[in-house]
């Protein structure tokens, strides 16, 4: 039983990463009805943004890992990724707004591969180690708590989960209570009518991309706290799993993305813990195929019918 809870905790922290990335997929799908293949690579760029800004920012805050330093790195990565995301949309997707969805999909694949291959050239193919921006250590659970003390929880895990919850609350606040958030929701229901009601479609779409990319950037930093080895292709695997998470939760649905991320995180942890680590990726693919066959709208999504 304790073993099980341990896996759940591991799954929760990994799932938080997937949730943050999945939000980007789902928000973009919500406003543009297309899957941004290149989103996983923005996550990777977040990690590298941290790699290059950390030395400078940490030194500013007194050298060495520190809470304000880590926060600065996180914010820097989020900002850089937001800019990258907005730039990609502006250059590669906006000109294709009126074209068939297939054209944009192919372009997104191209963008993804371009970022990956250029990344391999610029950053080198080999993994690099991410600097320590905050001290990660195991948290001692007092013996007096009984059986629970056998669990291994690290500060890193708590930070990941905590920051994710914080960002999710922030996102919810933006989506529900700001005008831009309301515009995003209007666009996802009916783009034409939204623009007739005075919504500046271009601005809202840029905002959506920026928001989703910032979250992916945050995920890039958070994951590097726990797994300090980053490489230009780390976005491929994580991106795919986050995509499955978004579909599982119901693509286009923000709560669904968060839910899906956590579920995929749990599933992975259970597979690694109880079945066989080598099947980890295959199981996630199998989940994708199953959802698409059984309930394509996902757990929390609504199905759209084509008008005949």
């Amino acid at each position, binding site marked *: 039983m304790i073993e099980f809870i341990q896996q759940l905790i591991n799954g929760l922290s990994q799932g938080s990463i997937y949730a943050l990335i999945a939000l980007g997929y789902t928000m973009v799908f919500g406003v543009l009805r*297309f*899957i941004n293949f290149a989103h996983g690579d923005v996550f990777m760029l977040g990690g590298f943004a941290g790699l290059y800004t950390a030395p400078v920012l940490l030194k500013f805050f007194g050298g060495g890992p520190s809470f304000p330093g880590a926060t600065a790195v996180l914010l820097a990565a989020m900002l850089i990724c937001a800019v990258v995301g907005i730039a990609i949309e502006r250059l*590669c997707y906006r*000109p*294709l707004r*009126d*074209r*068939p*969805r*297939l*054209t*944009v*999909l*192919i*372009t997104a*694949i*191209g*963008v*993804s*591969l*371009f970022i*990956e*291959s*250029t990344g*391999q*050239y610029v950053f080198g193919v080999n993994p690099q180690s991410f600097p320590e921006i905050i001290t990660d250590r195991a948290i001692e659970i007092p013996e007096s708590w009984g059986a629970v003390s056998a669990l291994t929880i690290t500060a890193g895990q708590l930070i990941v989960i905590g920051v994710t919850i914080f960002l999710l609350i922030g996102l919810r606040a933006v989506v529900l209570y700001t005008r831009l958030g309301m515009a995003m929701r209007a666009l996802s229901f009916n783009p034409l009518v939204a623009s007739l009601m005075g919504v500046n479609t271009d601005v809202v779409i840029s905002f959506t991309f920026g928001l989703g990319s910032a979250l992916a950037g945050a995920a890039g930093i958070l994951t590097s706290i726990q797994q300090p080895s980053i490489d230009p292709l780390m976005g491929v695997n994580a991106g795919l799993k986050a*995509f499955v998470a978004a579909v599982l939760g119901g693509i286009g649905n923000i709560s669904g993305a968060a839910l899906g991320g956590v579920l995929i995180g749990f599933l992975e942890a259970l597979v690694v813990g109880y079945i066989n680590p*080598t099947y980890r*990726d*295959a199981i996630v*693919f199998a989940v*994708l*195929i199953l959802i*698409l*066959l059984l309930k*394509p709208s996902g757990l929390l999504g609504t199905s759209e019918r*084509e008008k*005949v």
Partner: protein
Amino acid sequence: MIDRSKSLLLLAFVVCGVLSALAGNINPYYYDIIIGVGINIILAASLNLVNGYTGQFSLGHAGFMAVGAYSSSWLTLSFGHLLGLNTPGTTTTYVLALIAGGLMAALAGLAVGIPSLRLRGDYLAIVTLGFNEIIKGIIQNAEPLGAQRGLGGMLQHTNFFWTYAFAALTVYIVLSLVHSTYGSGFLAVRDDEIAAEAMGINTTKYKVLAFVIGAFLAGIAGGLYAHFKQFIHPEGFNFLRSFDIVVMVILGGMGSTAGVCLAAVLLTILPEWLRAVSGYPWLPEWLRPITENRMILYSLLLIILMLTRPQGLFGGVNLKRKKS
């Protein structure tokens, strides 16, 4: 017109035979490229049937190539000595292995095609990608197929004649299908599935058929490849290989067989040319990465193509019009 295409095919076979006999001792480097072109023509034309003519966006074509490559290799390695395949040149029975590989790939095409029926555009693409990875994963865990180490030891049965005979056959199959009333079903499915059903076309049949035929031909290409390189490895059939073929289809113009064949030629020669260019001392430094890392160029090419000329070179399908 009908008899003409068959006689054109026979003529193509004869020409292949003649050229093959005349070729004699050609520089092995160029020979490698020529065979590569032929194999890519088969891959591109067969993918075009699925993506271009039937409108099903498949991103997993290399998976079918892998099934064909491994099946035919396993057959020739296991039973070659029984069927007199010990020396290259006794190649007629080798063709049986190729076809068997194609049939196995066709089965894989069936397995992928059927579940994919209910999925549209983006989702179909990702599921086919998933199947490509699953096929690769199965091979990587299969000991009799060499698993992660790869499979080698095949004899080089593939030659100019067989490669280009099958390339001609592939083009013939695709074109004769598409230019018949029977084949108009594929095009109807591509343009409007609901209208196609209303006109009495069984859209399921055509979608599955496209996958199965496309996979069969890709499997043949895989077998040809395996018996030319004499060594195959699961990583050689991953998403990037599928992507290569997809770029050929898009560059050529989805729905134009002539276009994709030309694109196959261009994109087989291009990396070789780039490799040659990257060695030139007068090349500016900032261009070097593009010539050394083919993927940077390919992906950039794809993005620019989609932004400026999505219909490719000879585009049959209009990809610029707004979907209403």
